[in-house]
């Protein structure tokens, strides 16, 4: 715990405006050495900007005001760009959002890791000794527990896994020996098991005396690491207290809302057995691997999905979940095995004969922004789906009727009909995902295949979208294949769970069996690694 170290940063009355829009409003906090303060809020709450203010990296056009802004005891309010450059990397390090793209893809990991050190720690020295550089890089990579540091230093970021890239990014932030680290969503893009290790690494850094400002949308992810949590909402800190207190007795209603939104492993009552609507019989899909050989993306997986039920598929990135989804959707033909839709052949048919039945099987993708045409209005998106369905069913419903039905669909997914004239970029992430769901419903599907449908969303929005999917499933008696890396999310909806690893189904059973009595060690590891709020 943060045994009162000296204060490394103190902020009071911090406001950031873009023109008339106040994005950060009268924010105050301190971070001491060896302490972790977490700022938690939804996207757009101003938390990222607040973190950037500590490095003087507010984007152009932002007007910044503060009654106090000290970094390592020095007043930073009047800092020029040149002053800030001396602070960045040497006193304050940034672990930027989105570890996968935060390192320069064209430079070797070693060069990226050493850069801050080169800039700050060796002033005057025209050229640093190559041997000294190398040993410094290796030391830094060792410090963040990167295996085979000599090899990794020579590689490029894209040759590293997500977890290693995040470690290399942390090493690069540590390179100039900062006393304060600003970590913006350091675990968001990572698999659960990798997430846990990165959090452990950050905890270690904290113990070594570094002050840590952790920024996240996910209360559960920060709960273990943070000494104090500041909840940010619409640019203001609405509640700021020690972690344990805040979690056990939240005062502000918004904090309570965030807490409720955290998915908890919770098994739903089992539904009765309906008929099998979708079935895979030991399907396999192989791809040529880089170099020689093949990669078994999906390896002999069998599954059954019954009417009105949800099958959750859990696994880490690269485990073959999405390939399996593509095989089920008959977007990929399996090399072995067969997929049956409503008891009839599906994967073996030629596409021409599948087309009339495609409406029964609809996809909800992770990234609704990518799956909605940016030039189409929402009305256009829905009309297209409706028209497709009308011609497919032989019916000739008129355009007037379609307007009405599009409105009804939006209402069904909890959106106002006023959004019909908007385009995707004018909607929030949650609204876009609802539109994607409405579009799928327009085809009157019997099965929804949801591939990480809430992974790109804030925790609070996640909860709402999950609720919607749950309601639709029950009202429309839909069956769902629900793919996620997050066991807690899956457990909320799933009747059956299938755990995938390296293309194989390592464990399969009812949600109750798998989550309460996991048999495979990998399932147990996934369950342990899932960030969880300490039970009150």
């Amino acid at each position, binding site marked *: 715990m943060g045994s009162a170290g000296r204060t490394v940063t103190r902020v009071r009355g911090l406001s950031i405006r873009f023109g008339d829009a106040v994005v950060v409003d009268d924010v105050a906090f301190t971070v001491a050495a060896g302490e972790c303060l977490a700022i938690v809020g939804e996207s757009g709450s101003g938390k990222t900007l607040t973190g950037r203010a500590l490095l003087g990296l507010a984007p152009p056009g932002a007007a910044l005001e503060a009654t106090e802004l000290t970094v390592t005891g020095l007043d930073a309010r009047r800092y020029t760009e040149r002053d800030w450059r001396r602070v960045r990397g040497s006193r304050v390090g940034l672990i*930027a959002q989105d570890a996968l793209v935060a390192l320069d*893809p*064209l430079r070797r990991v070693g060069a990226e890791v050493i850069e801050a050190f080169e800039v700050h720690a060796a002033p005057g020295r025209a050229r640093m000794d190559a041997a000294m550089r190398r040993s410094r890089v290796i030391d830094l990579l060792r410090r963040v527990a990167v*295996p085979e540091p000599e090899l990794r230093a020579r590689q490029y970021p894209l040759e590293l896994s997500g977890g290693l890239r995040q470690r290399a990014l942390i090493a690069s932030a540590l390179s*100039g020996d900062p006393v304060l680290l600003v970590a913006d969503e350091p675990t968001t893009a990572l698999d659960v098991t990798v997430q846990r290790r990165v959090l452990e690494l950050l905890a270690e850094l904290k113990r070594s005396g570094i002050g840590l400002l952790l920024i996240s949308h996910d209360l559960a992810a920060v709960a273990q690491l943070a000494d104090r949590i500041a909840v940010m909402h619409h640019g203001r800190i609405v509640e700021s207290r020690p972690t344990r207190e805040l979690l056990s007795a939240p005062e502000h209603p918004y904090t309570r809302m965030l807490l409720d939104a955290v998915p908890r492993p919770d098994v739903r009552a089992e539904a009765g057995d309906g008929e099998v609507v979708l079935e895979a019989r030991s399907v396999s899909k192989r791809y040529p*691997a880089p170099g020689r050989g093949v990669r078994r993306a999906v390896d002999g997986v069998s599954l059954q999905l019954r009417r009105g039920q949800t099958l959750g598929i859990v696994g*880490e990135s690269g485990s073959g979940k999405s390939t399996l989804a593509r095989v089920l959707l008959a977007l990929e033909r399996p090399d072995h095995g067969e997929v049956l839709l409503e008891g009839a052949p599906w994967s073996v048919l030629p596409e021409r004969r599948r087309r009339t039945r495609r409406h029964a099987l609809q996809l909800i993708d992770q990234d609704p922004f990518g799956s909605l045409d940016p030039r189409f209005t929402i009305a256009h998106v829905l009309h297209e789906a409706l028209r497709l369905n009308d011609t497919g069913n032989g019916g000739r419903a008129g355009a007037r009727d379609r307007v009405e039905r599009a409105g009804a669909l939006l209402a069904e997914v909890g959106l106002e009909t006023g959004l019909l004239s908007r385009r995707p970029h004018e909607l929030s992430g949650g609204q876009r995902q609802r539109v994607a769901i409405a579009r799928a419903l327009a085809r009157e599907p019997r099965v929804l295949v949801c591939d990480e449908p809430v992974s790109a969303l804030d925790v609070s929005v996640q909860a709402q979208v999950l609720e919607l999917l749950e309601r639709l499933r029950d009202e429309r008696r839909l069956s769902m294949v629900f793919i996620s890396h997050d066991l807690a999310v899956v457990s909320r909806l799933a009747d059956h769970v299938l755990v995938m690893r390296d293309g194989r189904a390592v464990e399969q059973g009812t949600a109750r069996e798998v989550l309460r009595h996991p048999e*495979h060690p990998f399932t147990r590891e996934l369950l342990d690694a899932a960030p969880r709020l300490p039970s009150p």
Partner: protein
Amino acid sequence: MPPSSPDGGRAAKRVDTRRSASQTSLSAPPTSLVARALGRLGGMLLVMWGATTAGFIALRAIPGDPVDVMLGVTASVGESVRQQIRVEWGLDEPPVVQYFTVLGRLVTGELDSYQLRQPVMTVIADQAMPTLQLTGLALVFALGLATVGILLARLPALRPMVSTFELALVSSPTFWIGLVLLAVFGYQLRWFPTAASAGLPALVLPALTLALPLTGIVSQVFRQGIGHAESQPFALTARARGISDVRLLSRHSLRHAAGETLTLSGYLVGSLLGGAVLVETVFARQGLGAVTVRAILGRDLPMVLALIALAAAVFAVINLLVDLLVARIDPRVRMAG
């Protein structure tokens, strides 16, 4: 089922075994290197063949008798002499036979120009130097001026000016730029000769004429590339390390922009070759551009085909070099290949 122990670095290792496959392909030369080189060479020959064939068809499709053009409008020559010329040049043969004869001679280098009555290879060899000097200097000018523009545009105050200037250069036709340069620096200021065709001073204005439109394009694309690179997340990380603007440019964004600009090289070479035709005409210079114009006007089929084959070869070689360079700059390209 894969053996699994609750070992700390397992998930990372698992992914790493998969990555190391691509890692080997990066450092060790793949065994198929020879096969790939042969493939590239084959592709190059195919492009040259396709281009010459298309040229042959196009030239044959133009109505009229090439012998008329060869002899000139004013010549009054009897039909028997004309026939003799036809036989001499093989123009009496069916088109297919002509095609293969021309192609065969092109490959062996025995093709003769109708107009100049000497081997096309000799003509090209003689005329290549002036054009190489012209295009070479133009390239130097274009890259130099573009660099100046890019550096000036780093200052926010000058950016709109640079961008307007770029647009003006890109939009102006080459021959017009040439005439303006001639009028101002040649006739008015008399800094450079207007008629001489030898020596460096005589080369400056033509090269500049050729260079200016390219400057606009290169500078535009390069600045866009830099802007794109610096809006990416890694640029924020880099700035958060306390690096200067100069270092951000030299160590990070320049490399990204260079990769994007290199893919423009094919277009640049095309502009240089096409521009040489115009510039050599406007400045009355010798060179391959002038030869091209004369060959086309004179329906000198062998000469035109040889020039087409040459241009195709130049394009193919440049594209090969660009591919190698881009792979050198961007490890992502290397690994995908």
